[in-house]
């Protein structure tokens, strides 16, 4: 293999890795929490820029390592790590599926909380099985 094709292979692996990381970031940090907050307007999506930044760095980092070490056996645990990390981030952003809120009715304050964790876990599990 010539020097040029080696460089091309590494560059393409880096690009694929970063894109995969961005894809995971988009699905777990942007898409799923947004979808849940739209379906259930009371869902509390935590505003944690540090967590988003950390998730972005970890997803792209793991995606990159996974892409560069595609032939190596370590790529499988790295891929699993991306998915588990994604699930944890979605759960953290959505308060582990507990929707809370407060309404005022006829002079009374009604605090409500609803546990939607079961369908949330099912969606995360199936998204983990369906994505690459």
């Amino acid at each position: 293999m010539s020097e040029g094709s080696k460089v091309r292979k590494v560059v393409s692996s880096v690009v694929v890795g970063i894109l995969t990381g961005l894809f995971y970031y988009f699905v777990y940090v942007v898409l799923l929490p947004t979808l849940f907050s739209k379906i259930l307007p009371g869902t509390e999506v935590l505003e944690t820029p540090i967590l988003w930044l950390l998730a972005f760095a970890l997803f792209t980092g793991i995606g990159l390592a996974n892409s560069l070490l595609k032939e190596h056996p370590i790529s499988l645990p790295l891929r699993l790590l991306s998915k588990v990390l994604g699930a944890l981030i979605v759960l953290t952003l959505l308060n582990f599926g507990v929707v809370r809120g407060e309404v005022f009715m006829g002079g009374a304050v009604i605090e409500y909380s609803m546990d939607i964790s079961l369908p949330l876990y099912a969606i995360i599990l199936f998204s983990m099985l369906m994505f690459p």
Partner: protein
Amino acid sequence: MNTLLKLGIGLVAFLILSGLITPAIIFVYELTSKPDLIDFKTSHEQLNETHVKVVFSITYRGSVPLNNVRLEVLNNTLYFGDLPKNTTLTKYVILDVSSVPEYPEVLISLKIAGIYRLELRIRGAG
């Protein structure tokens, strides 16, 4: 094979999620379309100078069963159990009038179709 497997997983996911989400959709729809879906009534009867009997009655007219219905008021827990369609359950509690605040806090907890735990904490009701 891989595509077939993913299609299979997708189908299973769709069926399971439909089964999980349908009761919640029906419950929310009935809650918004039927004003008398859950009828919660209280009445009281003076037993003597110091004690009063408070009767709580819940009537449910929805099609999604409600499970583990529980009511907590002034450190008393009333367990109503399961509420199928068109059921009225009545429980009572005997309270010491001297210890009853003007606006007691009431906690109602239940499970919608045994899946979604719902808790309502009511404060300051007149």
